């Protein structure tokens, strides 16, 4: 592989990895506070992409549609928690998990009913799809913007988690919800913040995905969501930095394996699960997780 192809794959990998990372953060944070693998989480990227499409097909400017879609997804995320998960706080975790799968089916089918099952073209504004040629490297603007925005968002999340009282409460909730309440913390409000952060990041990931692969359908969240879940487990579920690391590792691997062994291209979706199996076999706590009971965030 010559150097320019290598660079090309590097930027592609960073861009794909960013999307996985953004979605994986939501998985890991919800798991951190509720011990729930929120299988509906992948669908929030779909919700984000569709709400954006809906907004700007209705004549709202693209930027504003993006903003409204993020807010809308956060709202749906919070409502999911309030309606479906909150009544089950004291129920066995398996009930929560099954509910999450139910919510996932519900969202997918709701959007099929609303928008139809056929893939829709997602025509992002021209300035996002413009392509630069640097030497032999082919650089769509989005491929540059996506990793930059992801790093900014990640910095912001880490700041919230480690430098504010809200982050302190989020981290403490991972250990002991009743005791956190006794510190005067409104635990329901903190869980709401976690769902707002998680769902809006997933929506951002979904919008990035739609800009990069401009065809969206109501089931798009399934496979990307599962890969992001694999990324979260790879990084160590419960750890935000781990989720980001896992996302990038997965993104780079997927791109590079296909670039080096084009005949494996048809199997590219399988790598994430191959990783997942390896992690579960040899290091079930993931890269950043030391001990399932002790390491959170």
């Amino acid at each position, binding site marked *: 592989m010559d150097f320019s192809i290598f660079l090309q794959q590097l930027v592609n990998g960073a861009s794909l990895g960013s999307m996985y990372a953004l979605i994986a953060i939501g998985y890991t944070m919800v798991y951190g506070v509720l011990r729930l693998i929120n299988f509906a989480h992948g669908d929030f990227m779909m919700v984000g992409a569709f709400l954006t499409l809906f907004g700007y097909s209705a004549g709202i400017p693209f930027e504003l549609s993006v903003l409204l879609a993020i807010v809308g997804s956060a709202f749906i995320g919070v409502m999911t928690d309030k309606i479906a998960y909150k009544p089950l706080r004291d129920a066995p975790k398996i009930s929560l998990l099954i509910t999450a799968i139910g919510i996932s089916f519900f969202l997918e089918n709701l959007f099929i009913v609303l928008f139809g099952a056929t893939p829709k073209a997602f025509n992002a504004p021209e300035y996002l799809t413009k392509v630069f040629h640097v030497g032999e490297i082919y650089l769509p603007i989005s491929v540059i913007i996506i990793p930059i925005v992801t790093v900014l968002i990640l910095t912001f999340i880490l700041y*919230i988690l480690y*430098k504010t*009282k809200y982050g302190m409460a989020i981290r403490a909730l991972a*250990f002991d919800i*009743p005791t956190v309440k*006794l*510190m005067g913390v409104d635990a329901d409000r903190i869980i709401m913040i976690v769902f707002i952060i998680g769902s809006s990041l997933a929506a951002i990931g979904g919008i990035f995905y739609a800009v990069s692969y401009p065809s969206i359908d109501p089931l798009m969240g399934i496979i990307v969501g599962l890969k992001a879940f694999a990324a979260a487990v790879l990084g160590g579920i419960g750890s935000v930095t781990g989720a980001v690391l896992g996302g990038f590792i997965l993104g780079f691997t997927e791109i590079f394996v296909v670039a080096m062994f084009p005949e494996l291209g048809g199997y590219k979706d399988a790598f994430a699960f191959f990783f997942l199996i390896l992690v579960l076999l040899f290091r079930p706590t993931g890269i950043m997780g030391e001990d399932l009971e002790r390491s959170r965030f």
Partner: protein
Amino acid sequence: MSFLKIDGVTMQFGGVTAIDNLSFEVEKGMIYGLIGPNGAGKTTIFNIITGNLYPTEGKILLESNNITGTKPNKIVYKGVARTFQNIRLFKSMSVLDNILIGFDAQAKYSYLEAIFRLPRYFKQEKFIDKKAKELLEIFGLTEFADSKATDLSYGVQRKVEIARALATNPTLLLLDEPAAGMNSNETSDLADIIFKIKDKFNLTVLLIEHDMKFVNKMCDKLTVLDYGEKIFEGKPADAIVDKKVVSAYLGDFSHA
């Protein structure tokens, strides 16, 4: 007027009566003991005071205000804080972070002030950081500030838990078996600290304990529970010689 009044509290779980029509009053500034054999209902009383349980009957009055059933996350604003029998620190967080969470209610800034890093955010964070470090100083925990809570010895973890409770700025401190699992050196050290913070922070203390020597030294007055019923109320010295109390602890020898 009493500071804390437990007024005719009954707590039933299904058919089991854990606490049966219990009443007692604690004066301001007292260290009040709550003792009794295992399963007597002592911790249940704590759970009722902090709002984790709602009593089947009866009321909890704090400075004449009815606080029965106040939610756990609101009880801290009434000035009530507690520790747990089985230590419940936030395990892999640092000691300083554990204490800082206790200041949550006192750190007054909003989401927006945090997101945009407005002056009040910095001022408040600096303020609680300073207060937290003062607390560590009082408890002699400064050297452990950055240690993970679980890396500490049992006795030190107990102190961290009491410090965290104090961080919420309470007037009533509930201590659930603070001396459990401590050696005699640690126990006497703990006694000194409890006396010290009681005076310094103007506290009233309600204490659950098994160690009678410790109770004797600490408590101004106590209530003895057995199977959810009050079997004695008075001075510690009188409790030790009370027939009912002795038989509750050691078994009834009169029929032997």
